[in-house]
């Protein structure tokens, strides 16, 4: 991954969570970068570690959860930053939006108050100036009659409007990086479409980088520039979005794309990935995906395959990366 200096560079990120049944190694040696203005999709199934990765970047974990590795944001290692440095970064330069806006918004404060709180903390705006800017932000996120809605409480907003309001709060500090954790999963498809277009427009207008965590490959295809596929706590593949959907270079990405309906004749059997997600307490030897993989061979069972460059701007942790077929024409709709 040779490119202009990244805004965010994550190296060998590990997250371990102690549980009564043993320590869960939820994120295992994840390395990736985000360029300024880039929208990176982090895709994976439940337990893949995608949301945990995002939360670790935001510094949301406290003991007994341990986070190791380096997270370099604008030249500064966040994992070794002091609490004061964190305060100056989190919320100010890195914003975050969540899946459930209703639980992420404070129900007893008006939306306007919550935006202005962020404006005061990170931008030093107060009073009339803050109110003006808050209305501007609501307008920017596509909320009609923004001035009037500043005085509304979150419960007076519909689901889609709440998500817009949460985005407005996150944008108040003019972050350079927005972390979005399944921001549209709880929304209806027409509203999801609106929010995704909004994120794309904002990225364009504000030259912001976005990391979008989702399990929906359609959302990835429709919004991201680059994709990182996670499985069992590890990065399986990183690629530009077009290339991933055309010719995945990891057997897991391939299997995932092939399992979606639309690739074969109507009512024909789908091509599922056999088995279920891995148990993080009892990972198989070698590649975590190997027990479910159609291409698995002896080479997959030794050491866990590292993520290595396989083409310009592409990396894969698959032993059989070069041998996988392309999907041209197979995936439609």
């Amino acid at each position, binding site marked *: 991954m040779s490119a202009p200096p990244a805004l965010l560079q994550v190296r060998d990120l590990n997250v371990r969570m102690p549980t009564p049944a043993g320590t869960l190694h939820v994120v295992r040696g994840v390395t990736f970068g985000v360029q300024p203005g880039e929208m990176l999709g982090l895709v994976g*199934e*439940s337990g893949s570690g995608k949301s945990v990765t995002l939360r670790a970047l935001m510094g949301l974990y406290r003991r007994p959860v341990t986070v190791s590795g380096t997270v370099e944001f604008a030249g500064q290692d966040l994992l070794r930053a002091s609490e004061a440095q964190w305060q100056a970064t989190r919320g100010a330069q890195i914003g975050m939006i969540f899946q459930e806006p209703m639980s992420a918004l404070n129900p007893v404060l008006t939306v306007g108050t919550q935006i202005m709180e962020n404006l005061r903390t990170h931008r030093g705006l107060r009073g009339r100036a803050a109110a003006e800017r808050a209305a501007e932000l609501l307008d920017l996120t596509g909320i009609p009659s923004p001035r009037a809605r500043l005085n509304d409480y979150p419960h007076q907003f*519909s689901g*889609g*409007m709440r998500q817009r309001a949460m985005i407005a709060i996150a944008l108040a500090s003019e972050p350079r990086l927005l972390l979005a954790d399944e921001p549209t999963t709880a929304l*209806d*498809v*027409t*509203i*999801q*479409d*609106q929010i*995704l*277009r909004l994120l794309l427009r904002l990225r364009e207008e504000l030259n912001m980088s976005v990391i979008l965590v989702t*399990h*929906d*490959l*359609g*959302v990835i*295809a*429709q919004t991201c520039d680059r994709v990182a596929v996670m499985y069992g706590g590890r990065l399986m593949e990183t690629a530009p*979005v*077009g290339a991933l*959907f055309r010719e995945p270079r990891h057997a897991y990405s391939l*299997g*995932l*794309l092939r*399992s*979606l*309906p*639309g690739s074969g004749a*109507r*009512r024909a*059997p*789908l*091509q*599922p*990935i*056999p088995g*279920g*997600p891995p148990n993080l307490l009892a990972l198989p030897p070698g590649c975590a995906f190997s027990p*479910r993989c159609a291409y698995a061979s002896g080479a997959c069972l030794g050491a866990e395959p590292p993520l290595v460059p396989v083409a310009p701007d592409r990396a894969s942790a698959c032993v059989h990366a070069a041998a996988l077929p392309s999907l041209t024409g197979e*995936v*439609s*709709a």
Partner: protein
Amino acid sequence: MTARPLMDVRGLSKAFPAPQGLLARLRGEPRRAVQALSDVHLSVQRGETLGIVGESGCGKSTLARCLVRLQDADQGEVRYEDLDVLRLRGLDLRRYNRRVQMIFQDPYSSLNPRMTVGQMLREALSVHRLRPRAEQDARIQELLTLVGLPPAAAGRAPHEFSGGQRQRVGIARALALEPDCLIADELVSALDVSVQAQVVNLLLELQERLGLTVLFVAHDLRLVRHLSHRVAVMYLGRVVEVAPTEDLFRAPKHPYTQALLAAAPTLDPARRADAPAITGELPSPLNVPSGCAFRTRCPHAFARCAAERPLPTDVAGAQVACHLYSAPDGAVPG
């Protein structure tokens, strides 16, 4: 639509009273209601898969629940062959439920956590006296094999299974009654993508083998397109369009269907829209717009849409409830 339908829904309506505050009640404000289903017409042919799609609050789940009598409809009629479904009681209702089974969405709450899989299946067989006691074990094994579970599954409790396996158990429990119609409400939406395909294949295979009629209620358009012979699109308690699957996805006629399909994210990164397919929020189901429910978000809306509710009209093999198609000189949107 020549054959007599297996199930025929006519003018089905259902409203839920909205929770009302004490103050509002004391002031004597009229009690408001959520119109979950409003004059729904639908027919299901024997052996087909009818997909029912729509966004939250469109009434698709309420429809499914009314059809198995988990919910009582306010108005309308449901015919199942010669049965007047909404008037069935007691033993007749149980006989009907034997023929029309439902599979639930949540693999975690749809199985009694304190019973083993074998106990659940045996209960279903015993209650309906489907097998003498001596043959029940064999039948349980048969059912488990049918849904692709190992024989040992009979002795295990739900917590020992993964989400996909639990859905298989739910399917086996429904099949124990030897139904001829399955209503699947969001069958796979709680499962991981890679596991969804496993359960979808099972449904396809079972339908083939057992000649089942399936009502597939889902919000995943790709899945509905793959599985269904015909698709009904619902919006705010109304069926706005019913059409053969390929027609509906290739050439959607109702403006809402068009918007819904355009909004669904495609897997092709090269086909990316700049603007949202449709603006505006879903209206509150407490306050459905007059006339056509979709008119507030419809790019083609005109005066008549507010005044008069459009009736389903036959348009090239589809039923569409839109004034664009009933108006004498209405412009047909492309």
